[in-house]
Structures are given as structure tokens and as C-alpha cells.
């Protein structure tokens, strides 16, 4: 990836992070930790990888993203707003009555949201259904789904993985956000679902491990995924929960808590300083 593009993506991701902080601060609740950990990946997906058109959000041939870890909706909303699916001002209405930005993604009311999610384990299955539909309709769109590392403790995730491999859904890309933390503590201590790489391989996936905060690595992973035929691909993204806000990084307490006014100012200043915006 050339330097200019990388800088541009970094700037966009910084804006997405600012939006996430704005959203959660305005809502006084929400999930900043896991939103910040996927900010770079979602930025890359929507700006470089996926074929989507904000003017035609329901196009049958569009690529799709199912945010299986639906509680990190602030990251998805931020990217969708930046892309122009809906006005940015709406972000500050997150979780408020009357807003179409629900606490968890709602496909019926939010332009650009491809699947209603929030209950863990369900989204990845729906993504399998979309990938199967593409095959049945002879369309070449791809379906991406973001699964949390903690979410992978849900049995249904493994039912879906079995299904994807069984039906050779090579148009499906499963992403695991390996940030290592869930509500009750470190993922490996709460209920260890590792090793993801070996398990996913055994389930019939082509497995890629990548740094979820390095755009070169992210690009390489997605480019490779597209070349894999006859089986689905899983990308295990190593990420940092709370990435970009020093006091939130690797802190389990920031899974589902909003910053107060003082913390908000510090977070915004930090992100801006780092991105020089």
C-alpha cells in the first residue's frame, strides 16, 4: 500500500474513532472498547474492500457486512455516516428514543446496516445465509462478518462455521476480532475458546492471522481471502481493545462504559494529536 493511501486511511480511521467517542459520550452508554478495536478494519472494509453505494444501500449486488458482535455498533455507524449513508449529526442521537441508531444494529431502520444483530452468535449464521443466497442467485458479491473473540464462546458460532465449510462458502469472510477481553475479564480466563487458528482450520477454513491495526496487513489479508476458492476464509485480527485512547487500551472496564466529560476531552485530544487533525 502506498504511503498516501495509508495516511488517508489512518486519517479516516481517526475520524471514525472520534465519532465513536462522540457517540458513546452523547449516549452516556455503549461499547467503546470493542468499537475502537475494529475501527481500522471497518474503515478499510468500507473504503477499500467492499462494493457499496450510499445512494443505493439496498442494491442486490452489494457486498455485505454482518456485525455479529453487534454491541460495537458505534464503529459501524461511524463508518456508515462517514461514507454518507446518513447524516453525521445522527450519530449524536445514538441510543436515544426516536433515533434510528439503536443500541444494536437494526437493518430495518438504519441505511447501510445489512443485518439486525446484537444477540451474540446469530449474525455469523445470517452471514452464511447471505453467502448461500449469492451462490443461488449467481451473484458475485461477498459477505463479511465480524465475530468477537468472546462471542466465539457461543455454540452457534461453531454451527455456522460448520455450515460455511460444508457448503463451501468461499464468498464468505469471517473476521475474528481478537482483542483478548470480554466483560468478565480476559477471554482465555473466562472461557478459553483458543486456539482459533487450529480450530478454524479443523473446521475447514482457510485461516489468515493479521494485525488489525496495520493497513498493509489488513489489505494483504483481504486480498488473499479473495483468492481462496472452495472453502471459506477466516481472518483472525489481532487487535487492542480500546485502541487509540490510551486509558481505554486493554482495559476490560471500557467494554461497555461511556467516558465522562473530562475523559471525553482527553480521548478526543489524544486521537486528534496522534492523527494530526
Amino acid at each position, binding site marked *: 500500500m502506498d504511503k498516501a493511501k495509508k495516511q488517508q486511511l489512518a486519517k479516516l480511521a481517526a475520524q471514525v474513532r472520534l465519532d465513536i467517542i462522540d457517540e458513546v459520550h452523547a449516549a452516556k452508554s455503549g461499547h467503546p472498547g470493542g468499537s475502537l478495536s475494529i475501527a481500522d478494519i471497518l474503515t478499510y472494509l468500507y473504503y477499500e474492500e467492499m462494493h457499496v453505494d450510499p445512494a443505493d444501500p439496498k442494491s*442486490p449486488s452489494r457486498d*455485505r457486512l*454482518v456485525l455479529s458482535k453487534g454491541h460495537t455498533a458505534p464503529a459501524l455507524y461511524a463508518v456508515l455516516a462517514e461514507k454518507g449513508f446518513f447524516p453525521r449529526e445522527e450519530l449524536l442521537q445514538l441510543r436515544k428514543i426516536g433515533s434510528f441508531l439503536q443500541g444494536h444494529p*437494526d*437493518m*430495518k431502520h438504519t441505511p447501510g446496516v*445489512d*443485518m*439486525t444483530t*446484537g*444477540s451474540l*452468535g*446469530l*449474525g455469523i*449464521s*445470517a*452471514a*452464511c*445465509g*447471505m*453467502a*448461500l*443466497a*449469492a451462490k*443461488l*442467485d449467481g451473484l458475485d458479491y461477498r459477505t463479511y462478518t465480524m465475530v468477537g473473540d468472546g462471542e466465539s464462546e457461543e*455454540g*452457534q458460532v461453531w*454451527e*455456522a462455521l*460448520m*455450515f460455511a465449510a*460444508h*457448503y463451501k462458502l468461499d464468498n464468505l469472510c469471517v473476521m475474528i476480532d481478537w482483542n483478548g477481553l470480554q466483560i468478565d475479564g480476559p477471554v482465555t480466563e473466562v472461557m478459553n475458546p483458543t486456539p482459533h487458528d487450529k480450530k478454524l482450520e479443523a473446521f475447514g477454513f482457510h485461516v489468515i492471522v493479521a494485525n488489525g491495526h496495520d493497513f498493509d496487513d489488513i489489505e494483504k489479508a483481504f486480498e488473499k481471502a479473495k483468492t481462496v476458492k472452495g472453502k471459506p476464509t477466516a481472518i483472525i485480527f489481532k487487535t487492542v481493545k480500546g485502541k487509540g485512547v490510551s486509558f481505554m487500551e486493554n482495559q476490560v472496564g471500557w467494554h461497555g462504559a461511556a467516558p465522562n466529560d473530562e475523559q471525553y476531552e482527553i480521548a478526543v485530544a489524544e486521537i486528534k494529536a496522534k492523527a494530526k487533525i
Partner: protein
Amino acid sequence: MADKIATREAYGQALAELGEKYNFVVLDADLAAATKTGVFKKKYPNRHFDCGIAEGNMMSVAAGLAAAGKIPFASTFAMFAAGRAFEQIRNSIGYPHLNVKIGATHAGITVGEDGATHQCNEDIALMRTIPGMTIINPADAVEARAAVEAAILTDGPVYLRFGRYAVPVINDKETYKFELGKGVQMRDGSDLTIIATGIMVDMANTAAEQLAEQGISARVVNIHTIKPLDREIVLKAAKETGAIVVAEEHSVIGGLGAAVAETVCEGCPVPVVRVGVEDTYGRSGTVPALLEAYGLTPANIVEKAKQALALKK
């Protein structure tokens, strides 16, 4: 003697027959032989997807298919559809109001010998609580076939309830017209109304005949669409006959009996007495023995009718 056909048989045949007219797909969870979606699979192998013994995944896969414009039928036993996969149906299908048809077979006590773990007497209650869910419980093979087509033509989630046990065909295939959400008056009467659904409709007719012999005039109404409920026909029955018995092969809690009682209490309070599986589990046995043991008989409908009449002021 009328032909006897299980509604699950009619379901499988309807899918196979309608497969040419409508572009739907069928999912099953290792029960294609029992749910009868295997009949469709034989004809359209490329449109039938076995999901294995993973019902939760199947329901959410169906949601994804529907979100991408397909019309999926997702089939398994009622216990594993409404029971096991309740939350997937609620969150993946119901909440986004996706166009998924749930073909739930082996509903109720007439599962027979397999016993309580497989006898789902709670599915109507569970499905009724999901906003926007349509629930159809056909009385016979003719109605079952019509219900499948009506489900295809209805946008949004539909729960279709079918039985394992062969029951008499009571509707005329040539003249039958299915109207979603409309109750069917099977026979008129003035002393009370028996409101029945599914396999209990035939028994309600028999009970009405027995009541007639005793000088009691019973109206019989078949409710195939439990949700949305035909409030008009229910309130009309309350107003005109002043007493109601509801008969269903389902728990007396939360099913059609509850739906009718709720409607009548709010709209035209008259006695409502329920015939159904009392607050208990099923068990193994032959179907006739189970129907007898759990009071799903014309004789019990007659007895409850007399109770309702006694309560009538």
C-alpha cells in the same frame, strides 16, 4: 369414512407441488424424512439445504437468506423450532420482520411414542409473543396445502404448525378457499360456540353432533390462523351464543384458548372454557391413548361445553 392424512405429509407435498410456481428454498435439520421436506428435496435437490442437527444456526441462516431476497422454509420439529430456536426466531427473523417461513412439524401430543421431550405443547404460546409473527395451524391436509401457499404469498415471518399423526380430511379439495386471518364457521348454533384449531376441529364437529342429540345447539368455528386472530368471528360468537369452548392440541396456557379468552374478556365477556393439555408434560403412548389420557376428545369437549353452559347467565 374420510381419508386420513397427516398435515406434515401435506406440507411436504405442497412444497414439492408449489416449487415450480414459486422460487423458495427449503432448509431442514436432519429431519427431512420426518418433516417431509424430503419430498421437495427429491424433486429440487439444489434448493434443499440440510443444516444438520443445528436448529439455531438454521433459523439465523434462513434469516440471512431472506435478508438477501430469498424465501426460505426452515423445517424441524415444533420443539426444536419454537423451543430450541426461540431466540433465533425472535431476534434474527421476527425483529427484522424477515420473510422466513417456519415449517414446524410433530407439534403437540400426537407425536406419540417418542414422549414428552418431543411433544411440543408450548409452541403457539411462544410464537404468539413475537410481534409480527403469523401463526397458522391447519386442521387437515387440504388446509395445510393452502396454508403453505398463503405463507409464500404473505410477506414476513410465518409459523406453520403441522402434525405427525394422520387425521381425517374434512375440507373439500376442490372448493376450499383459504383466507389468512379469517376463521371458518363450520356449522351454526345458538347455545354456545366451540372454537377449535388443528386436529381438534374434526373433534369439535363430532362434539357438536353429540350435543345436538342432547338438544344443545353448538356453533363450530375453525381458527386456522391463530395470529392475527379473527377477533370479529370470536366476538360475534360471544355475542350471539353467549358461551365458548376452545379446543386445541396445545397447552391450555398461552395458546388459542388464551387468545380467545383475552379477546372475549376485553370485547364481550362471556364464559370461556378451555380444552387442551393441562399444565403438565406429555408421555409415551399410542396417539389414541394419549388423546384420551389428556382429554383431547369429543367427549371432553361435550363435557366442557356443559360447564360453559352452566356458567352462562
